[in-house]
């Protein structure tokens, strides 16, 4: 809760200032809510300067650290605008988390390859119920890719799971084309080439993944975007129009989200309480899905959900998203930009 931290910070500064600065009591009494009046933001006599050159865990020079941090804790940026209370992380601190995620995604792509091959076998064997179950597994593995979804080249994405622009479309490729045929009663053998084409795209996926670059800010935002998209596109049924497997797909999104959080956890240590909040909510979210999962491991389709089940899913998703949305701010890599003023730009012209 950044605002709690902000209020706490303000109160602390006010109390300290009142105790330390001579004569501040009278000012404070007149303006009880004004920290500006009692605690100047910058001090020309920085005591740290002579003894320290660097501050552990920070990229800010020691000579500027005290001033910068005290201003930040007051929520004031270099130009007087609202600022973050955390010192930005160096962007290269994301190298390890992103590499860790790519490693995970490579493993997932291997599982996806296996699952799609199994799907092809079931389509050839002509058993629709088994083929549908095999599709569920393949779709789950595809969604386990999570954070790289959307970063892959468009053509590769389409080969894996193109989203048709309307429901009557027949000329499209990937898992949703198989889905349409499976649940609409198309001859199973007619779907074999579609499934085989997905298998043929797996090597390209494996080659592309190590070259995929994820911007630090984007990667941090993926932590909530995966489930945000799952809620909008899967729990609504929009992208699982034929199978109705929105709960299954959202469950897969939780797995991918956990992997993003796992890789980012070292960066979040000691920065607000975000990691604890996120972990608590993800545990609760997983528990919700566990109560809905059937003994055979399948999930109800969207229209099989009871009102109570749907409300529990919506509620725990909303709660988890509220925790996850704090991650980008917790692991930010840039200080706030020094936004010039119109007057300043006019002056310098």
């Amino acid at each position, binding site marked *: 809760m950044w605002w709690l931290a902000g209020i706490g910070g303000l109160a602390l500064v006010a109390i300290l200032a009142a105790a330390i600065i001579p004569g501040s009591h009278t000012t404070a009494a007149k303006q009880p809510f004004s920290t500006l009046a009692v605690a100047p933001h910058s001090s020309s006599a920085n005591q740290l300067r002579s003894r320290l050159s660097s501050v552990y865990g920070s990229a800010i020079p020691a000579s500027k650290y005290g001033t910068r941090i005290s201003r930040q804790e007051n929520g004031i940026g270099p130009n007087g605008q609202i600022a973050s209370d955390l010192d930005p992380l160096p962007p290269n601190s994301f190298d390890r988390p992103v590499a860790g995620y790519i490693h995970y995604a490579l493993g997932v792509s291997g599982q996806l390859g296996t699952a799609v091959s199994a799907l092809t076998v079931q389509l050839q064997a002509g058993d629709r119920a088994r083929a549908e179950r095999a599709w569920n597994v393949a779709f789950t593995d595809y969604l386990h890719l999570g954070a790289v979804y959307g970063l892959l080249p468009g053509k590769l994405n389409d080969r894996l799971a193109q989203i048709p622009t309307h429901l009557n479309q027949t000329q499209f490729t990937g898992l949703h084309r198989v889905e349409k045929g499976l649940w609409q009663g198309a001859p199973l053998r007619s779907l074999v080439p579609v499934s085989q084409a997905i298998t043929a795209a797996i090597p390209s996926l494996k080659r592309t993944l190590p070259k995929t670059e994820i911007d630090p800010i984007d990667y941090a935002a993926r932590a909530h975007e995966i489930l945000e998209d799952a809620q909008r596109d899967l729990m609504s049924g929009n992208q699982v129009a034929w199978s109705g497997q929105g709960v299954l797909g959202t469950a897969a999104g939780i797995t991918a989200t956990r992997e993003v959080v796992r890789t980012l956890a070292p960066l979040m240590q000691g920065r607000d309480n975000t990691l604890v909040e996120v972990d608590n909510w993800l545990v609760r979210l997983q528990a919700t899905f566990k109560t809905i999962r059937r003994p055979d491991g399948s999930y109800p389709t969207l229209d099989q959900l009871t009102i109570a089940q749907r409300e529990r899913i919506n509620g725990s998703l*909303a709660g988890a998203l509220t925790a996850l949305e704090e991650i980008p701010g917790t692991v930010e890599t840039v200080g706030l930009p020094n936004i*010039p*003023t*119109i007057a*300043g*730009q006019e002056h310098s012209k």
Partner: protein
Amino acid sequence: MSPVDRRGFLKGSLTALGGAGAGAAAGLAGADRAHAAPMADLATAARDVNARELTQSLPFDGFHQSGIVTPKPAQATVVALDSVAPTRTALIEGLQAISAEARQLTQGVSVGVAEIDDPPPDSGILGAYNAPDSLSVTIGYGASLFDGRYGLASKRPPHLTEMPSFALDELDPTRTGGDVILQICAGQRDTVVHTVRELMRAVAGKLVIRWMLDGFQTAVRDRDPKANTRNLFAFRDGTANPDVTNAAKMDELIWVRAAAGEPAWTSGGSYMVVRTIRQHVEFWDRVGMLEQEQMIGRYRVNGAPLGGTYEHEDPRFDLDPKGDRIPLDAHIRLANPRKPQTEHQRILRRGYNYDRGVDEAGNLDQGLLFMAFNKNPHKQFAVIQRRLETEPMTDYILPVGGGYFFVPPGARGSGDWVGSGLAD
């Protein structure tokens, strides 16, 4: 109509009450005023403000229709109609009925009494007197009306087409298009609801509803009387609109003029763009404040351009060519680059917020009922829209419906109807 100054009035100036509004309001507000004299409590004051505002009316007839450059009241509904009239004569009867009914309702009318064993001529939900309440019914026609059905193809206004599906649109056919569009605006929700209901009675069997959407303005909550109301991303909306009191500007950007080579019957009309734009508000609320402001290019709290101090300040893009202050892909920069060569593209926005409940996934279904007027949608609105396809805000919005319509000049009096020129 002069805009009512709520705050000034609430400060205690009661003398105005007997003035402008008294004539039409006599039957309506008389009882209230009789015992409201001490005016101690705000509730009573608010009710009298309502009573006064209910008496405000906008003209129905005139060179231009109301509801374009007139002030924007708090409530609106847009109704798109399709014609099921079997003949051209029946269609024209339906269109005439809309104008006749709208003329009465916008000017205020006592509810008539019929035979006791007949259904009453008015639904009566506003009581014994249908107060005008700044009601406007702005009537427009879609390109589909000019297809082969009624022999109107030769009358199609030259710039009227179906609205194209832009790059990021996911238009739902059941929320898009229509032969006729009605933009109904008024101060109170019940006035709008009543108007829709009476208009539908008037066109029964001839025109049917294809889609409709309710809109509202956020209340005036700022000290600055010129402050624009907020959209549901919480930013001020409409700040950069051209000045509606500048007649030359309106002629340049909004009004169709026969002198400029347009068909004579369209002179005084305008082209209307309607876009139903879903706003993913939960997603937006998960975005950092700084990022929100950089997407828009304005401060959220007061609407000032970034680096500026007040809403209507010129953002001075000329001083900021690299986007150090306002990012180059910020909404306000792409929408209106404020360059001489883009000046002729400006449009008059007149949007409302909408709130249509909850979607299948449990998210709030809220957004912007975007409405705008311009002289030529292909050279103005569409050019701006295509420029906005690269703005980061596109991740948080989804256009799902709307349409292009031609809004004819106003009717010339009680014998005339809006669009009569197309039947000549």
